């Protein structure tokens, strides 16, 4: 029912990056302020997720860019903790979905339930909200869900809305999906289709923490095994509305024309590489640009450097390129690296 969504802010799927071209570049002070906030968020999350500072920063960047995150790693390295902690740090609602092959789309979206007396001529229909109506949604082992369920997630991720029985419900803002999958266990899975892979802004590998980090982890959370996510109490650093404001600042970080051209050249290079047959999609380029803006803002800069782009190339592009004959992750990364190293970085000339 439309009335259901009246209390929600009108959802705009691209609101986070809207109006970048017209708006003046963010000033240095604005970005400094945003960076301070972001550092606090990162620090808060890092309390719970020990030893993955880079991944946290990327996750925060992904959140602010309005993208979604795909975490691909073996179990037990803190994927769920990361999502949970992130949601807590920004004071957002958090939902977790464990995907199984028999998971139905309505299990994600929710269902219309008739209410009122049985046998009445006109019965109201009420939405029983699914887990997707949260601001941060953790979708565990996404590749175990059936393709039908994955498709339901598809619409929610890209359109930021849910359509049930012809009624469209906007999702809250921010809306951040953290999906995980285990890369080494393919048995009984439904590999993610290309379209869905392309909808994830970043793909991360948490990896095992370093020795120091692991020791710190043991010291920190060793006594609370079994209830690890709940045990770590994270005070919210900010609220979602404030996060949107920070995101709007980050979206106005200046991206120099030379870098725009560089991005295009980079995309062209991947497209001309026969082994990465389709190459990078324009959506991926947009995502990379948006992420680079946030990445610069995280570091307190109001302009993007080529270094930002280079750092984000791997998490942004690698999962979108392994579509041809090469599926090995390491090989795709090596190829990507080789391509990146062949495209000259814009540099001032005399």
């Amino acid at each position, binding site marked *: 029912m439309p009335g259901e969504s009246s209390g929600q802010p009108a959802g705009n799927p691209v609101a986070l990056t809207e109006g970048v071209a017209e708006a003046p*570049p963010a000033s240095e002070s604005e970005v400094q302020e945003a960076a301070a906030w972001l550092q606090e968020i990162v620090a808060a999350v890092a309390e719970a997720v020990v030893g993955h500072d880079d991944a946290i920063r990327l996750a925060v960047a992904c959140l602010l860019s309005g993208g979604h995150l795909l975490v691909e790693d073996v179990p037990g390295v803190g994927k769920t903790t990361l999502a949970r902690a992130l949601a807590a740090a920004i004071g957002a609602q958090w939902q977790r979905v464990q995907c199984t092959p028999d998971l139905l789309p309505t299990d994600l979206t929710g269902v219309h339930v008739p209410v009122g007396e049985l046998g009445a001529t006109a019965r109201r229909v009420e939405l029983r909200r699914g887990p997707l109506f949260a601001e941060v949604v953790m979708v565990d082992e996404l590749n175990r869900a059936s393709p039908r369920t994955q498709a339901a997630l598809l619409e929610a991720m890209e359109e930021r809305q849910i359509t049930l029985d012809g009624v469209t419900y906007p999702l809250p803002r921010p809306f951040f999906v953290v999906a995980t999958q285990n890369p080494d266990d393919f048995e009984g899975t439904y590999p993610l289709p290309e379209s869905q892979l392309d909808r994830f802004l970043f793909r991360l590998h948490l990896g095992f923490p370093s020795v120091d980090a692991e020791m710190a982890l043991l010291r920190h959370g060793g006594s609370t095994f079994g209830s690890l996510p709940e045990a770590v109490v994270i005070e919210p650093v900010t609220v979602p509305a404030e996060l949107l404001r920070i995101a709007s600042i980050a979206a106005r970080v200046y991206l120099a024309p030379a870098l725009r051209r560089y991005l295009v050249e980079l995309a062209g290079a991947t497209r001309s590489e026969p082994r990465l047959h389709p190459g990078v999609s324009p959506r991926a380029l947009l995502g990379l640009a948006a992420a680079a803006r946030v990445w610069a803002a995280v570091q307190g800069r109001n302009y993007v450097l080529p270094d930002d782009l280079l750092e984000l190339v791997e998490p942004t592009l690698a999962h979108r390129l392994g579509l041809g004959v090469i599926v090995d992750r390491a090989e795709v990364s090596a190829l990507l690296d080789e391509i990146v190293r062949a495209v000259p970085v814009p540099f001032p000339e005399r």
Partner: protein
Amino acid sequence: MTVTWPETQRQRERLPGDLIIELDKRKKQVEASRAARGRRGAALTGRGRAAIALGVAVTGAGLVVGSVELAQGGIAVVALVSGCRVMAWFRGRVSVINLRTQPPMVAVGMPAQLTGELTGWRHRASRVSFSLPIDTRERGTFALGESMMWRSDPLGLSVVRQRTSRVRRRFLVHPLPLSPAGGRLAFGTEGEPSAALKPFEDGDELRRVHWTTSERLGHWMVQMPDTSLRATTAVLVDLRPAVHTPDSFERTIGLAAGLVQPRQGGGPTRLVTTAGLDSGPLATSARFSEVLAALASERPRPGPPPEALIERLPALRRCERVIIVTTPAGCPVTARPRQRTEYVVAEGPAQLRSNPARLGGLADGTDPRSLLQPVPLRSPPPLPPVAAGAIGVIGRLIASGVAIAALGLLFMGDGWVVPLVAAALAGHGMPFLTDAGARLLSRRGSRRVRPSVTLGVLGGVVGTAVIAGLVANGGHPGHPPIINDFAPLGRALWRLPVNLRLTGVLAPERIPLVVGSTVAVGLAATLAEFLTRRGKGVWAAVPASLVVVFGATEGVGHLSVTTCGVLAASMVLAIGLLAGGSREIIQVSRQQQTGGGGGTSSSVRLGYPRDRRLHWIRVAAAVTFFGACLALAGWLGNLAVSATGGGLVSLRTAGPGGLVHIDPTVSFAPQLSETGGPVLFTVRSPVPDYWQLLTLDVLGPAGFVSASSAFTPFASGPQPMPNGRRVVEVFHLVGLASPWLPVGGIPLSISGISGLDWAPESETLFVPDQEPAAPGATYAIDALQPMPSAAALAGATLVADPPPVDLGVPTEPDRVVRLAHQVVAGLTTPFAKAVAIQNYLRAHETYNLNPPTGPGNQLERFLFVTHAGYCQQFSAAFALMARIDGLPTRVAVGTTPGQLVQGDTYQVTPADIHSWPEVLFAGLGWVRFEPTPGRGPPGNTNYTGILPSQVGAAGGTSVAPVGVPTHSSGNSPDPSAPHGEATLPGLVPLPIGVTPTTAPSPARVPPGSSRAPEPGTSVDFVVWGAVGAALLLVLLFLVAGRFRRRVARAVIGGIRGPKGAGREGGVPYELLRAWEQACATVGPLIGERRSAETANAYARRCQGRVPLETARQLDALATALGRAFFGPPPVSAVVR
């Protein structure tokens, strides 16, 4: 690390990271000198040289023919070309940036372009991109750059070569990959799985199944983790020169490229040449491009046979297949059985030649240069302030034009030019002074003080009023206000009110003139100044330069119809050419880095997009420039022609029926300034006299001419003459060939020569039949020299019946008539009137053998503008004014008595030629007057003298009359006077009438103005010319300096951007230099920055490998560089 410059005046600037760079404050100069070095190739084009030759020829022709217009035109052409050459130095430096090749590499024969952007003072608002086709007919690795630019002026007269960029770009023209005929050797066949995957076999892990490929192929495929980079096929290229022809070599290279080309589904290959190149396994496109680059520069080189190489190289032996690319000559008789070796034979004509469609028409014999067509340029974004700027410019031009036109109209002559120039200068200068004063008076440190427009207006008005009053003061002392003698200026200032009243400047009808001109010039000047303070100095220079140019042309030169035409044509031409854009050729050198072969180059002409604001600047500069050229031409042309001399009174050619012109502008001035000339004739006479040749009765439009009167044979006999004395004059003609014979007084009888004619009306002795008297003739005249007494003169009346010749006055300007009436106002007797006119001229005009010429009535100019002339102007002006006042007057031409050589013999040279007016009185005949105040060059005979009886009380306010101060009409003639005068040869008073008996007194010394080293001669001209030229030069340099400053700013701006505009992607010049120097420091240690490496990454790479401090500072430099290059533009630029 401290990066320093060798120049002085350094400035310390802190960059992020505590990096200290000593900046050179004179970087603009450094840049300018760099630009100057780049401009070493400035030269005239063939067209320019031809134009100069033409100009010289035309000038010479003009001088020979005596045509001012022709000489002016010629000099204008020369000045124009030279000016173009000079102005070429002020063309802004243009830099080429962002050179890129598109695509980055290309197959031989395929089209490719080099794109770049031009920045510079003309393009600072928006860069202009250009693209050049690259010659790809030859494979190889080429270095594109340095780029040079040939820039020519709009007329194409001179060309400036400058280096626009030292950047070199590497460009690969790789061989065209060819397929073997029939394609049967296509290894890695279609559908065959790649080397990274293999079909599923028992024992393979299920988790290694590659589902995507399995689905596509229909059977299971598993990944092979570690087999991906092992080359299974080797391509061995035979490069030995012995087996190749040029065609087969090209085809071999192409085949090799085609065979190693990575393809979908193909496995890694390996390229080996007989010359030693081994590519290693080729798995990626990136490696393939390296192989292409290597192949591109391959040339036939000796090496072992392929078969021997296979034996030698283990890598080749491990390969499953070895494909040898060679020619039939390279195939061995027997193949090696133990290796799976195949031969690809490059035969027949190279495909390069046989596939014209693929090569874009190059193969069919068309000239590849025909492909070098300029690519349409991207238009720059429109400039918002253009409309405002154009309105301002038009407003200024209109204001200046109105001021000039109004002044011209109001002054009704050409006397307006000088006040206009002066007022404009004053108006332009005053605001600066007042501004400086206001700053001094204002509170220190206050920046709120703005140049006071009111004070500026006041300055302009006051300056204009003062100078207009000075110049329009009726002519005394005849100098324009900018003078080389301050005394007359002082006197003029003192007498300013008197002069103003005397000349009617303050008359009611003149008041609007003065007020209007003053306000107009003041407004124009103030407007210009106001705009100057708005940073539009170039525009402000336009009205000022227009004024100066017009002033120079009008005041000094001879503005003729030709000049006007040339001026107009030049303007139209310049504007038309400028509107169409100048011609600039950019050339990027293209040199092959490896292998042989010389470099080639391609060039293209760029038509710049029209930028209206810059366009107007150029038009203004061109207008100023051409105006200056033409002014110079006018001045020089006039100077040159007048130096060669116009024409003497044509004594030789004039006949009795012809008219002898006394042109007040050009006549016998050259003869007058000639010292030591040939002796015309000698006279032996007891009394010196003016030796008259002819008289001029008729006042025509060009001056006084002789009337064609009846000549009768001379008949001797005494004529009634109330007062006179008879003398015998013996003339001996030496160098004079004239139809007229000199005579002093009225001849009574002539001996020694016969058959002469006599014109009683004009009292001229004439040789009949138009035959000049032969030199050497000697004749004696018994003449009567009239000597009217002072009383007779004072009481003389005009004749009742005037002679039959026309003594009338043509229509004269009002102010001449007014002046003539003013001079004799209050006088009743004819003699008094004549004396008044004579004294007025002697007092108010200056003797000058080179009077400035100009358009209009020359006598009017003489009386009101130039106030400078010699005997012709004086006598003609006297005759004119006297006729206006009703006195029958004529002009006589003859000589002064000449030099007393011995006894009573006088020698007459051309320098003694003279003219004087004569007035006809009843009973006294023609009485001579002498309005000419002095004599020209030192050493010439000073003939100036006035009859004492003709010295009236009315004249001579400032100049003492010559002659005896006392009236001595009662004295009898003293025959010994000439002998007495022999001691003072040069100071002979006229012996007409009463001969002075007193000894020569100091009063006989001619007036001081004529005794002083003549200011009126060419000295005046030179001074004026120098002043004008200096003004023009200063103006030009001011304008050019502004351009230079803009250029310097733009050169820096090419990197940083001027005042934030176009800063996008800009890096401070000094920062870039610091980075380069830092890189040069660390480069030997860790290598140069790779093209795909950012500055930060490079700095990180340096960490741990260079000293800590250096690494830290390199890091800071990189950060600063990134901020400058990638940072957002300034807020102002964004807002705009």
